[in-house]
């Protein structure tokens, strides 16, 4: 077991729905997804963001996409049109979540690295021709 930052294990992208910040957390492998479903709890997420989330946290597991949909209520200062936040629509919230540290099997880290490597080799513009 090792202390691993979420950024190694998953991708994240966040946006807004009114005063709700939502984060799509995408695991880099099936095993990582199975681990994250158990490891990432609403309590942990709320604690990670300290005082930034004024409302509740809900997590929807999406197994077919090996992802979690994480809902942070009342976390955007009232919503994009009236917030004092510079990041009005919470685009940086997903990246902030990736700072979280989890205790995980090092084998998962290896799987994540393999996915990163595959993405780089498979999609790198020099390795593909566009139709």
């Amino acid at each position, binding site marked *: 077991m090792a202390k691993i930052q979420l950024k190694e294990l998953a991708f994240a992208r966040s946006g807004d729905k009114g005063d709700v910040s939502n984060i799509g957390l995408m695991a880099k492998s099936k095993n990582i997804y199975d681990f994250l479903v158990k490891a990432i709890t609403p309590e942990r997420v709320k604690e*990670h963001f300290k005082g930034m989330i004024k409302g509740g946290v809900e997590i929807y597991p999406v197994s077919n996409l090996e992802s979690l949909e994480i809902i942070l209520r009342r976390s955007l200062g009232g919503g994009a049109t009236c917030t004092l936040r510079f990041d009005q629509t919470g685009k940086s919230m997903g990246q902030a979540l990736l700072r979280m540290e989890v205790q995980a099997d090092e084998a998962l880290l290896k799987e994540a690295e393999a996915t990163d490597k595959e993405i780089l080799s498979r999609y790198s513009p020099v390795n593909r021709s566009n*139709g």
Partner: protein
Amino acid sequence: MKKVCIGSGSGFWGDLLEPALEMAEKGDVQYIGFDHLAELTMAILNRMKTKNPELGYIQDIIPWMKKLLPISVPKGIKTITNAGGANPLQAAKEVKKIIQELKLGPMKIGVVYGDDILPYMDEIRAQGWKFKNLDTGEEDIDRIRKDIVAANAYIGADLIIEELGKGADLVITGRVSDNALYVGPLMYEFGWDYSEKYIDRIAAAVTVGHIIECSACVTGGMSNMWQVSERPWDIGFPIAEFYENGEAVITKTPGSGGIVNPWTVKEHLLYEIIDPANYMMPDGIADFTALRLIEEGMNRVRVTNMRGKKRPDTLKVCIGYRDGFIGEGLAFFPWPDALEKAKWAEQWVRERFKRLGVKFEELRIDYMGVNMLHGEAAPIEDKDFNEVGLRIAAKAKTKEEAEIVRREATHLWTMGPIGVSFGIPLDVRPVVALWPSLVPREAVRVESTTMEVNG
């Protein structure tokens, strides 16, 4: 098997035009959808229309249509746009002039409107309906009624389908849901109605609409794939090849830059939604939890197994109301001791506000480059920063109070610590807050009309 190819030409007001033109030119599409409306946009457009009854639509569509229509019309590509905003009929009149000038007729323009419920929302309330705030739970709009500046229902594809059925080559709408710009043409082409047997097909169209409706956001924009996106400065917009059996392939304009792969599609499926099993749109409720993504080749992702539920009986309504003003000020501090200088300056402005006796509704101070984005979720590094910015933002009831923030921040430029740098002062801005709610579908008086344009 019959397939319909539909592309996204715009995901928001101010999007790039070139990818839409490139799609019309090189993409094998029958329809291009253009979304220009965000929550706040309707309030801005309503204000414009109040000042001048011939405005209130997205004026960008004038130069856009001048460039797009000469390419799209000869190819038979139909355009569906919500650029009508608060004044779809006026927008249609303006586009009609362009068609005549460019001699592109004969053509038919379908115009869809009636999403603006502000003129009759009190009648709906008189019948016992309450516009409950979906974010805060507040029961009704009594507290904000006098400050309401916009109330638009997110209407579905019904009348887009009707206008296409009447032979429209171009459909201009008001606050139709972004999603319906895509669902409409698909339902029309495949001859689906809202009955039980087409529920999963419509849910598939809702899902595909969601995937492509934000233009570049599924082709490598705002993506974790940013490092492998090809020629991102030539980014192409997304195209869906939708098959009669309810499957679709997500791709982009051939030869364009950017990237479409299972990761970009996943990113967008999960983007700006709440419950992935119940993505509620006026035309149907999509369930994203059963679908499968199959990479068919470079920049081609097949989506299968899409399903969902019947459309809801209520429509989302977005109510905008005046809610004070925001004042903002900036100053930047250089090495050495940049963070300490910023902290000193924070104390300086706080003391100034005290002396002026100003009471803000909310005051927020950030150290730019240190904690502005990740706030309390990130530890502050122990180092001598090269530079730190101080951002002061406050919300006030009056414009005068909000101006104080701006003024005190500029005083910091001459009265602050050594080396303060500054840019151009930011203008105070009025706040239109949003009150998300629901309205019974049948209470919304949607209408449409067909405008004939001769050759």
